[in-house]
């Protein structure tokens, strides 16, 4: 008990937030397992994630002060979140007994008066625009990895702590949406509402292949594509102004691309931007404890 208290006291807010979201996922699976059989694999997977994470945090707390700890913590949080991102794509739909799409679409119609993804179709229904937005959508992946790299390497400790904390807040809040509002997006739920299939070329097929490899469309609400892009933009606006300014239009294009590619509702993008703002604010607030 004394050891647990010591680790808890020495852990960073990003550790606690990540631990919190793992516990929420694992706790939800446990609760559902009581009434729904066949969830043992998920339960075991997430218990393993939980134990590995707690073990790593205990090690980080033990070696706190060493130069490598900040790097190791960054890798731990980022990898844990990426693993959860993958597993939630399956867990949410198998564990949660409702589908989030009707609710998200209802919120969308309340806010915009229509489904924005269906509305935008006639304006972007050409090979050029599909390829252009598929390229933008796909460019998100290198952008995220480059941003993570540039946000970590060559930075001060303060900046790294703010980044890790904000990152954990953004992903944890998004995963709550993924888990409790499991939505597949308009490409599945509103498939019949469009005038036709999207027809693109190389970049479009690249996007389709990457979505399929991740288990098909899932995790529509909120949009982490938009949320993460704006998170890095807001972070850079504070710590590397020109880069933030350069990528801000890219964030807007990503938001439009999610609609054109039919993977998200407009409300997903709006909530993604709000979460990015919350994450940056919380990142700065919570990291004060560590920096003090």
């Amino acid at each position, binding site marked *: 008990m004394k050891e647990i208290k010591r680790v808890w006291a020495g852990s960073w807010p990003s550790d606690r937030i990540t631990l919190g979201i793992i516990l929420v996922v694992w706790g939800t699976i446990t609760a559902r397992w009581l009434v729904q059989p066949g969830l043992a694999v998920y339960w075991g997977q997430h218990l393993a994630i939980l134990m590995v994470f707690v073990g790593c945090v205990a090690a980080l707390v033990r070696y706190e002060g060493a130069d490598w700890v900040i790097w190791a913590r960054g890798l731990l949080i980022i990898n844990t979140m990426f693993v959860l991102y993958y597993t939630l794509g399956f867990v949410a739909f198998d564990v949660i007994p409702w589908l989030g799409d009707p609710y998200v679409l209802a919120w969308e119609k309340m806010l915009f008066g229509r489904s924005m993804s269906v509305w935008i179709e006639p304006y972007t229904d050409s090979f050029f625009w599909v390829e252009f937005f598929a390229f933008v959508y796909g460019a998100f992946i290198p952008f995220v990895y480059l941003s993570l790299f540039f946000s970590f390497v060559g930075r001060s400790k303060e900046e790294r702590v703010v980044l890790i904390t904000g990152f954990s807040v953004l992903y944890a809040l998004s995963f709550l949406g993924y888990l409790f509002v499991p939505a597949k997006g308009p490409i599945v739920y509103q498939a019949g509402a469009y005038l036709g299939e999207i027809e693109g070329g190389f970049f479009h097929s690249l996007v389709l292949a990457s979505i399929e490899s991740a288990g098909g469309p899932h995790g529509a609400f909120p949009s982490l594509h938009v949320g993460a892009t704006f998170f890095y933009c807001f972070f850079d606006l504070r710590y590397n*102004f*020109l880069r933030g300014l350069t990528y801000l239009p890219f964030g807007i294009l990503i938001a439009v691309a999610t609609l054109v590619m039919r993977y998200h509702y407009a409300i997903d993008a709006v909530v993604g931007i709000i979460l990015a703002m919350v994450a940056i604010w919380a990142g700065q607030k919570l990291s004060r404890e560590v920096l003090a």
Partner: protein
Amino acid sequence: MRWLGWLFIKIFVRELGVVGGERIPRQGKVLFVSNGEQALFDYLLVSWLAETAYEFVTVDDDALGMLVGKYEQIVPIGIHYWGRRRLRLTAGVRVGRVVSGDEEEVRRELAEVCRLFVDVEQFEGLQWVATLLATAGAAPSALGREAYEPRPTLQLTERLYLGYLRKRAAEPKVVAEIVARVGRYQAELARLGIVPAEVFLPLRWGQAAFFALREFELLVMGLPWALWGWVNHVLPFWGTRQLVGRREAAVRQKSLSTFLLVGGLLYVIQAVVIGFILPTFWFVLYLLVWPYCGLLAILYFDRVGSAWRRSRTFWYFRQNSEAQEALMAEGRAIIEMIYALEE
């Protein structure tokens, strides 16, 4: 207005020095009275610095007398700009003590606050020495951070100036020797095209590779926006510069208002022409992107210049490591000598 002030500093201020920032009241309404070198810029800087509800007036404004009577907290604030020929300025802010008296007292305090700017201006070399002292003989910070990290250069310049006056009277020979040595050092760096901070540039290949990657990514990704910004602003900007440049010095001094007037007119003409060419949706998009790309272009080309200068310094030192060692040793010796003299 605070966000506008923040944006102004980020875009147009290369370096910001604030002396006496702790004097700015945190409660109650405040009247800021500036010396009004550039009233609009002063206002934007004040809007960023203000911690509470405020009103702003320049010392030349007719309303000053009337406003002074209304406020119990009046802050005289001297603001001076260097490098006005360039798009990005260096701004020095000196905050005076809070007064609550009559107009004369405000003017007296403001004159006192601004006196050092006038004096320091006469000793241009002091600023250069202050930038050398600000390096503390350590490696330079990453590019693009100058605007958000308030730099100690202004404080150092003032300390140098006051110290210089004291020591010049007490130890004229020593001071003359240092001045000559600094002059030689400055001339050597100017000949090589190296700024004081980059004398201490580390020559590690790993760091250089990271620098190259970071700058390459930024410059490639920013190029389309910056070029668009340049193309769409070059005509009003060039036209204004031509018109303002021909006016007498007194008018050029107030170039901002002239720029806004003439430049504004040229912008309107350009917008009307574009409006005739583009369909409504694209025209609205053009109008939204127009100022954004212009501001980005200012920062972008400034960054290109800094990145180029740093790369060139790196290559020069890689091939002349002995020259760097000699320059570093001399720089550190000068820094030590100045601090030793102060003690």
